[in-house]
């Protein structure tokens, strides 16, 4: 028998999920569900929207209003859902390839509009589902099936991207610090505007294997070592900052929310 949390919020008949042994996606998905449970939201008032990729399979396992959309377009679908039903808590589950490669334009414009959607990116640094091609978040020099000698591209800093595009809540956490993900998803849902939560997850099958990072346990232990909060990061020297990831709530802003602004415009006629 599964736990009460899983029994209540998952479509348990579809479990066990298809994710590989040691994949971090299950940890992030549980953290999202736990955050929804902590906030006491009614399942019918939540809509989970996902795109395409390993992470985006999460919507199929969850017992809310869910929609599994096309590659990169989860935020476009989510915008429509939020407009049609402003009372719904719209949560987007997406991956690094889905959100910032093919869906990159949707991300910057959804952030620019500051529409009340909470986006959780499962960043595993690679395209897992299609066989380990390098993604916009594969660190420079790291390998993928399409970068057998190392990736020469600079990788995106997703949180800086979301902040610059206009998101009003931006945070980052790792699967080692799953409690931090729970707190951030709660705060992201509570924020009236576009919330962007980057979760650093692990892909032992492709990213780990291609880059000799060991198994899932080694990869999670690495995340524990390299994650530092903003205050500690600022105290580090340039040399010590190499390879570190800043975690925590990185930006909170306040701007008019898109649907409210739209309705105000409609009412003015």
């Amino acid at each position, binding site marked *: 028998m599964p736990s009460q949390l899983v029994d209540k919020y998952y479509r348990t008949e579809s479990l066990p999920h298809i994710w*590989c*042994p040691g994949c*971090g996606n*299950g940890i992030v998905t549980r953290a999202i569900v736990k955050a929804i449970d902590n906030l006491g939201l009614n399942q019918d008032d939540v809509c989970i929207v996902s795109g395409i990729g390993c992470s985006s399979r999460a919507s199929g396992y969850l017992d809310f209003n869910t929609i599994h959309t096309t590659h990169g377009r989860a935020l476009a679908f989510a915008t429509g859902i939020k407009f049609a039903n402003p009372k719904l808590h719209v949560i987007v589950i997406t991956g690094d390839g889905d959100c910032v490669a093919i869906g990159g334009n949707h991300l910057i414009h959804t952030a620019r509009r500051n529409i009340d959607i909470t986006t959780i990116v499962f960043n595993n640094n690679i395209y897992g589902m299609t066989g380990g091609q390098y993604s916009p978040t594969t660190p420079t020099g790291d390998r993928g099936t399409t970068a057998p000698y190392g990736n020469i591209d600079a990788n995106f800093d997703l949180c800086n991207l979301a902040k610059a595009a206009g998101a009003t809540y931006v945070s980052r956490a790792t699967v080692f610090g*799953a409690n931090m993900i729970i707190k951030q998803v709660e705060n992201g849902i509570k924020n009236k505007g576009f919330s962007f939560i980057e979760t650093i997850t692990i892909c032992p099958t492709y990213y780990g294997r291609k880059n000799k990072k060991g198994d899932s346990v080694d990869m999670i232990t690495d995340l524990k070592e390299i994650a530092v909060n903003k205050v500690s990061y600022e105290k580090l020297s340039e040399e010590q900052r190499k390879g570190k990831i800043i975690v925590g709530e990185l930006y909170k802003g306040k701007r008019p929310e898109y649907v409210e602004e739209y309705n105000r415009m409609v009412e003015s006629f």
Partner: protein
Amino acid sequence: MGTLQTLYVVEEWCKGCGICVTFCPKKVLEIKDDKVAIKDLKACIQCGQCELRCPDYAIYLGGQ
């Protein structure tokens, strides 16, 4: 320690990754035949670290 909760394993969902075994602060768990097994329930302090990081929902603290 209170005994309000106890550990449960959903064996058929476990993929044997060993994350719970590594992060259990009291070494309660082990991997046996590629699945998680409870080695020493008495040592469990009900911290929930295993449940927090189990990617497969195969271990959890529940009411007795």
